[in-house]
């Protein structure tokens, strides 16, 4: 009796195995494929910090000394505009000098150099589709460098690519005006320092 039951059980197991093993193998293969396709990269503040430090070094090596010090001290870079009548859609500057403020991961702000009148905000992004660390966002200093290169390399193209908005959409105009005041103070202090250094070296 026991022998018969054991034999029956073995037959049932063999039949089930024939049916189940391919399904189990298939499920296991799918599980492994899913695990391969979706890398589980966790947020690593150390990695982000190292990426930002590398980006700062690269930015420093590309921009002028004045621009680097401006970014280091004030958190933004000013780039002079090069078009005769100002940036597109700004209504014309009548030949007056204008410039842009580049902030990390914020809109580029165009303004008239002499009066500090804000012209427009230009919203532009540089999404990193390769997503090396699971994020499409560049480190702050890489974002500033990308804007600097695109703006000094082909101002018209970058401005036509950006979404243009009136001042105040993303950046508080009062804050931008304050930044322009900080910039003028910073430039005066820098000139004083340079003049005193030159006097001392004579």
């Amino acid at each position, binding site marked *: 009796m026991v022998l018969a039951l054991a034999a029956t059980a073995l037959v049932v197991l063999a039949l089930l195995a024939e049916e189940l093993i391919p399904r189990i193998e298939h499920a296991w293969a799918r599980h492994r494929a899913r695990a391969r396709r979706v890398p589980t990269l966790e947020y690593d503040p150390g990695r982000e910090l190292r990426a930002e430090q590398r*980006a700062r070094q690269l930015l420093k090596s590309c921009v002028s000394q004045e621009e680097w010090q401006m970014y280091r001290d004030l958190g933004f870079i000013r780039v002079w505009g090069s078009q005769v009548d100002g940036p597109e859609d700004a209504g014309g500057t009548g030949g007056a000098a204008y410039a842009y403020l580049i902030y990390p991961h914020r809109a580029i702000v165009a303004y008239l150099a002499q009066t500090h009148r804000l012209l427009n905000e230009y919203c532009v992004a540089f999404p990193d589709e390769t997503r090396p660390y699971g994020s499409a966002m560049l480190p702050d200093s890489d974002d500033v460098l990308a804007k*600097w*290169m695109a703006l*000094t390399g082909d101002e018209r193209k970058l401005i036509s*690519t950006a979404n243009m908005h009136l001042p105040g959409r993303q950046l508080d105009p009062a804050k931008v005006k304050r930044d322009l005041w900080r910039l003028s103070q910073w430039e005066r202090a820098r000139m004083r320092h340079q003049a005193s250094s030159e006097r001392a070296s004579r």
Partner: protein
Amino acid sequence: MLIAEGDVGVVEDEERLIEEFRRQLDAGLWAAVPLEGDLGGRRARMVKEFDEIPRDAERVIFFPRAAGGR
């Protein structure tokens, strides 16, 4: 950001740089060369062809293409 560096005077280096340049632009990146500007300033030159890169350029920087942001 990706930096390509090499000596274009060395044939192997130049071939490697040309190949890398095409690969990055095909992947949709922009390429720029930082240069000395006027009065001690700096500026960048955007390049689309390998021949547009100044022979004395120290490096080419590849960065993501700009898109309209919010």
